[in-house]
């Protein structure tokens, strides 16, 4: 990309201290998000997708430590910025939609009041106009009868409705970047489609950039401009969506595609990925996919893990790419 990206994550490494040793959750994670771009992060559980998002927002668990790297957003390195500075950014410039809206919302506060809290903290709005704006936001996320929904508690709303409230909270101050972590997991397919359509519309209208984190390859394929594939705390491949699916270069990406059900594929064609995501404690090989890989050669044991350019805006972390 020739222009300066909106978010530039560079060599981000995160460790967790646990009783059983240090978990190297992220190692040299790098990717960029352009203005108005939708980037998907995919991978199996334990690949570090959510940790990446939490690190960018500076809301990691206290046991976690950022050991290296930068995450530059609009000229500011979020990883070294002070908490006061971050607090100004979160909610206004950067916001996040969490996986389970019911647990992410405050259960004992009406949802309209929760939206007002965000507006009062971050938006330059007269107190008298806040309520009006909160109701307008509820209408914007297509909640029927927003004036009534304003007074509802999360338990009175369905999962899909709670997720719409979460979206209203997240976009209340028109952020430049929205991080959506599995925003539709646990929702019905029809609701899932409606929610993603809604987020997509909002993003297009206000040129909002988005990071969509999911384990669902089909979903990122339909919704994202570019995809970041993660495995065991590494970014193994990044590429524009069509290119990634047409010509995956990392063996793991190819395996992930081959294990995803799709039309025209029978059960016999569906191939599992051998092995499991490795234990991230202790000494790890430079390539963490090495133990599962059928293309590995002796050189794969030698550090460092390469990051090759496989085309315009296409990188692959493999010595023997496809």
């Amino acid at each position: 990309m020739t222009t300066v990206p909106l978010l530039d994550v560079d060599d981000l490494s995160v460790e967790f201290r646990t009783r059983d040793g240090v978990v190297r959750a992220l190692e040299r994670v790098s990717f960029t998000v352009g203005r108005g771009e939708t980037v998907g992060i995919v991978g199996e559980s334990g690949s570090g997708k959510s940790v990446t998002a939490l690190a960018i927002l500076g809301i990691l668990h206290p046991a976690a430590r950022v050991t290296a790297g930068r995450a530059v957003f609009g000229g500011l390195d979020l990883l070294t910025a002070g908490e006061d500075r971050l607090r100004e950014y979160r909610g206004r410039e950067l916001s996040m939609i969490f996986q389970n809206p019911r647990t992410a919302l405050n259960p004992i506060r009406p949802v309209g009041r929760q939206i007002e809290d965000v507006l009062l903290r971050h938006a330059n709005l007269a107190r008298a106009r806040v309520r009006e704006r909160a109701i307008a936001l509820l209408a914007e996320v297509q909640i029927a009868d927003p004036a009534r929904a304003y007074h509802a508690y999360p338990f009175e709303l369905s999962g899909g409705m709670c997720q719409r409230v979460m979206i209203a909270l997240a976009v209340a101050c028109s952020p430049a970047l929205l991080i959506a972590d599995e925003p539709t997991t646990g929702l019905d397919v029809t609701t899932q489609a409606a929610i993603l359509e809604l987020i997509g519309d909002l993003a297009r209208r206000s040129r909002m950039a988005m990071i969509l984190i999911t384990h669902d390859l089909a979903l990122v394929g339909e919704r994202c401009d570019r995809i970041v594939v993660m495995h065991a705390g590494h970014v193994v491949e990044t590429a524009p969506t069509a290119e990634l699916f047409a010509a995956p270069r990392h063996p793991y990406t190819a395996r992930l595609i081959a294990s995803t059900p799709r039309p025209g594929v029978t059960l016999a064609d569906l191939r599992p990925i051998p092995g499991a995501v490795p234990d991230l404690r202790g000494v790890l090989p430079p390539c963490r996919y090495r133990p599962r890989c059928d293309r590995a050669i002796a050189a794969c044991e030698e550090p460092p893990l390469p990051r090759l350019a496989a085309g315009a805006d296409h990188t692959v972390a493999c010595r023997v790419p496809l």
Partner: protein
Amino acid sequence: MRLAPSDSPASGTAVPVGPAPPLVEVHELSKHFAVRGTRQSLYAVDGVSFTMERGECVGLVGESGCGKSTLVRLLTRLLDPTGGRIRFDGRDIGVVPARRFATAPERARIQMVFQDPADSLNPRFTAFDTIAEPMRRLARTADRPPLRRRVEDVAELVGLPRELLGRFPHQLSGGQQQRVGIARAIAVDPALLVLDEPTSALDVSVQAVILHLLADLRRRLGMTYLFVSHDLNLVRLLSDRVLVMYLGRIVESGPVDAVFDRPRHPYTRALVSAVPVLDLPTIEASPRSAERCSAPTAGARRPRMRLGGEPRSPIDPAPTVCRFYGRCPEGFERCEREMPELRPVGPDHLAACHLVGETTP
């Protein structure tokens, strides 16, 4: 009519010679729950009829609240129906009270695999104990040596290494836990296996393994499956036929390819169009010439059918109004005064909509 695969005489079951009757026949089955503090009822399952042939895999799809789980709990006889019949292998099991079903001979023959293996395995039971439990309780094989051998045989069948039998659930991976869940269910030679979202808690890499295992077990043991899932791609992979439920009623049923490729009920069409599909773009010339592939796919998607409105209330629904009316993009005046019944729209393919037959497929 579908018959069990020829190489699979249902284990432990005497299969009659000639065209066998269906394993499961459900007729006008209903379950209404009283709404507390009122005289109203919630119609969770309302007048559902279908059959399951021996050796068949029937998929059951629909959104949450459509009555899938209640239907499963009626079939597995954990709940008493409000009305209707459940015939299992020729016997009317719907009349046996749920409390007494635990001792009924059919109890061992209907087994279930649950959604989240971490939640559905007893954390204090080793894999061995979990698999042995139904044998002890239902098959009465309490003698130590044969029990040990049976458990090991079943573990081998599901691909669970023998050395893992002494482990507790937290010492097993998600895939291994689900193998234990499947082993427990097939330990007593069931004829009907109910699979309730068996892979939704697993990663795609492991999901494929479990799907292969389930398909293989069905072939080898001749079991009949009821596969409940919200993932239409999976239902299509594993099932022969599919039932689509909406607010307590079956709105469409038929062979998976017919229903998914040519859905006739507007709800099924909405459901099918909402499923994300992994489209692999093809590139002309060599697969390396990445420059030639099309622009990013975002924005250039298949047309989606959007459902407006709110679902109708399942509480005391009007018996003459189509349950989908209000959300249906094609609803018209007749839908409000007459409940559409299931009627044939193709070979073995039924749909409950006034418009089917009048529109071209």
